[in-house]
């Protein structure tokens, strides 16, 4: 037979509603006939009610909104920045396009230049029978060189392609590599002869 002390140990759990059915029934049966334990139950009920009534004052919605924002900010600071893989990929693609575009532009520029050069040489040809490929700059006298330069200028200024050559462009701006390339192309002979 259980003592009042044993029954009183179960009183907090009776209030918490966690006793198994047989234990609860046994305790309730004892409480019905034991004023001491019944009084003790009331004391526990009062204690629990007093604890529950001691609720801290609500700091308000603004407090919790601020708290949320602080949490979000700390998370952003704490986590490593996840860089998009697309940005460097797009940058690389843009670079490739730029390089490719520049290459094509230079090729077209060189081609245009060659065409203009050939056209100027053709205009200078005093003997039409002479194949263009045999004309050498060294073969031109001063007068022919001046005419050649003049016709070159006319050809270039009249060119629709103004992207690579403008009024301010000075041949002296060409670097050694570009000059050599031009000269090499001239030495090799015209490929885009205009008729």
């Amino acid at each position, binding site marked *: 037979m259980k003592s009042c002390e044993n029954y009183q*140990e179960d009183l*907090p759990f009776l209030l*918490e509603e966690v006793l198994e059915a047989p234990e609860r029934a046994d305790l309730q049966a004892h409480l019905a006939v034991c004023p001491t334990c019944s009084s003790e139950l009331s*004391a526990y009920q009062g204690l629990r009610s007093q604890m529950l009534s001691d609720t801290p004052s609500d700091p308000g919605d603004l407090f919790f909104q601020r708290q949320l924002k602080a*949490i979000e900010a700390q998370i952003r600071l704490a*986590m490593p920045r996840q860089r998009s893989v697309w940005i460097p990929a797009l940058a690389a693609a843009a670079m490739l396009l730029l390089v490719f575009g520049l290459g094509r532009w230079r090729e077209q520029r060189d081609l245009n230049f060659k065409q203009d050069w050939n056209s100027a040489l053709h205009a200078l040809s005093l003997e039409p029978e002479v194949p263009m490929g045999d004309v050498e700059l060294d073969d031109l006298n001063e007068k022919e060189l001046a005419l050649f330069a003049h016709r070159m200028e006319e050809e270039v200024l009249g060119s629709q392609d103004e992207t690579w050559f403008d009024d301010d462009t000075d041949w002296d701006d060409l670097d050694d590599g570009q000059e050599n390339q031009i000269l090499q192309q001239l030495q090799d002979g015209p490929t885009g002869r205009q008729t």
Partner: protein
Amino acid sequence: MAVLAGDQQAYSLLVKKYQRAIFYTALRMLRNPEDADDVAQKTFVKAYRALQGFRFESSLKTWLTTIAINLCRTELMKHKRQMVELPENLADAGFERQKEQEAADFKKSQLRSALELLPLRQREVVTLRIYQEMPFKEIAKALDSNETAVKVNFHHAMKSLREWMSKKVKDEEL
């Protein structure tokens, strides 16, 4: 799962859902709103970083509570708040009556003092059970204990507080 994938927006919804419960748990443990706010913030930041390790073995609330309780312990240790055993004879506690206060307020302040004097583990169990209505099974998970031990702690805590109340009632009657 969007949250486990690090979706901060989704996580904010979880914060809104549990921030009050976590804050009040910390407040009851620490009795200081600033410290409780700090613990609450650290709880959610820590949880976000550890989301990948959440195994769904307990509820999310229990998991958050576990983090918060541990942070509260750290905070209490940091401030070296003395937690002493509640003396068996509360007459020796030396509580002084403050006549200017309302009886209810006086009782509340005395109750808070008594709660603060409970051993840390008993205080944690009582806080989670009475104020958070957490099942004993979940409390055991949160405190990394077993259900029997948790119930024993709860019993001791309530018995100590009950004895304190009995003493105060007798003092008021005198």
